[in-house]
């Protein structure tokens, strides 16, 4: 448009026409906006700011020029990555001029990385940095509880992942309490929500393990799990975390920091709890070992008493203890019989048996006036032939003991 095509507001005294600032600006605006109603610009981000209103402001620049940009909240809330200074991007939008400030701006409605290569590069750079800081190290990982009773979930309230996890947990461990802290799992801000949810569980405290994740999706969908804020929250967590991002083959940065990585949410649920039938089997085995152990101990006691029986004199046949001694073999037989028939002694039977046995134990025999004679090494004396005159022997009574010296030996 040439000078002659502009509308003039007035004429100066010398004949020059002029236009007002508003008029000129308005014409430039019309020119600019009609010439660039939609444009795709590639450049590097600088001066990036994220306003509290949700709008983002930045400049796109190259070596020689720069264009100020704005991306309104309604346009940027679907961004799956966080733009940063230095990032090479392609911005789609329209040019507009802001009359009040006399600047033109690119009104961006779509922003993407200049190439997938850039995305990959950003990923690799972050991965290396976190690795060097030690976030992935095996030593810092927590052990998972073997039998969790309260499991926290950080996932979408409406996704298939939640459904799958709950079903599997209910099947494997129907006594487990599941606590959900729902979050968005894709899009702008999802990473912050995920990190906050993990922190909240740690503040709450009353869960044994966390499962954090989502079902499958595109690279963009899964991107929050590559964000630094999620990795740091996982690293901070003192509650163990099982990652459950459904990308089967690939790893996100979050997978490296988690205490255990599962390829899918369903797999995470399987890994989180042992199956109930597995546990019942384990418990059954322990019960059998417990009873077997007790039976073994009783058998051991009987054997010991049989050996000692020989060192007591048989003086009083009507004595109850004496009668029990006689029946020692019977007791042993009944124990062996029950084992042979594969019957478990229940705890009542075992208690009864061991009570009878304890009557035969040292203390109770000693109460009846018998004493236990042993050498100075503590070996019970059963055969007088093994003694020597003058040898000191220990005598143990019900109360107290004495050291005696052998005076005379009567061999039988």
């Amino acid at each position: 448009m040439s000078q002659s095509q502009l509308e003039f507001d007035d004429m100066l005294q010398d004949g020059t026409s002029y236009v007002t600032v508003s008029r000129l600006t308005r014409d430039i605006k019309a020119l600019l906006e009609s010439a660039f109603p939609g444009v795709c610009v590639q450049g590097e981000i600088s001066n990036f700011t994220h306003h509290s209103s949700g709008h983002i402001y930045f400049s796109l620049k190259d070596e020689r020029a720069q264009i100020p940009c704005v991306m309104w909240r309604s346009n940027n809330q679907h961004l799956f990555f966080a733009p940063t200074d230095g990032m090479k991007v392609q911005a789609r939008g329209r040019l507009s001029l802001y009359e009040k400030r006399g600047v033109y701006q690119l009104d961006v409605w779509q922003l993407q990385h200049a190439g997938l290569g850039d995305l990959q590069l950003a990923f690799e750079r972050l991965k290396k940095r976190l690795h060097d800081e030690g976030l992935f190290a095996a030593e810092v990982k927590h052990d998972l509880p073997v039998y969790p009773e309260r499991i926290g979930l950080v996932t979408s309230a409406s996704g298939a992942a939640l459904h799958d996890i709950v079903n599997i947990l209910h099947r494997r461990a129907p006594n487990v309490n599941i606590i959900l802290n729902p979050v968005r799992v894709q899009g702008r801000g999802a990473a912050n929500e995920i990190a906050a949810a993990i922190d909240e569980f740690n503040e709450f405290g009353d869960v044994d393990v966390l499962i954090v994740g989502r079902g499958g999706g595109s690279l963009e969908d899964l991107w929050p799990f590559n964000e630094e804020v999620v990795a740091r929250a996982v690293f901070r967590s003192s509650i163990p975390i099982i990652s459950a991002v459904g990308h089967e083959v690939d790893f996100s940065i979050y997978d490296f920091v988690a205490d255990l990585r599962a390829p899918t949410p369903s797999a995470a649920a399987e890994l989180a709890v042992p199956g109930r039938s597995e546990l019942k089997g384990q418990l059954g085995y322990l019960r059998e070992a417990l009873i077997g152990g007790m039976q073994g101990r009783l058998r051991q006691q009987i054997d010991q008493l049989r050996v000692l029986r020989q060192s007591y004199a048989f003086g009083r046949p009507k004595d109850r203890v004496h009668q029990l001694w006689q029946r020692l073999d019977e007791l042993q037989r009944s124990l062996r019989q029950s084992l042979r028939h594969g019957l478990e002694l229940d705890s009542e039977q075992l208690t009864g048996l061991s009570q009878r046995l304890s009557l035969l134990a040292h203390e109770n025999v000693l109460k009846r006036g018998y004493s236990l004679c042993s050498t100075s090494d503590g070996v019970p004396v059963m055969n007088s032939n093994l003694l020597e005159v003058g040898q000191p022997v220990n005598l143990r009574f019900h109360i107290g003991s004495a050291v005696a010296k052998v005076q005379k030996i009567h061999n039988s």
Partner: protein
Amino acid sequence: MAKKTFEQAMSRLEEIVGKLEDGSLSLDESLKLFEEGMELSRFCEAKLDDANGRVQRLVKDGADFRLESETE
């Protein structure tokens, strides 16, 4: 005594079995451990038979948390 968890109970039960099988305890001690073991095994059995696990939602209320029931 702090609330006994399933994990603690199983762990103690394993410990008791080990001690009993070792055979070095007195008869009285053995019986005491055996009774404790049977009690633990009953406790664990009951926990495994419990099928009342719930799904709840964590809700932050200022500085506190509460749990709400979650209907799927």
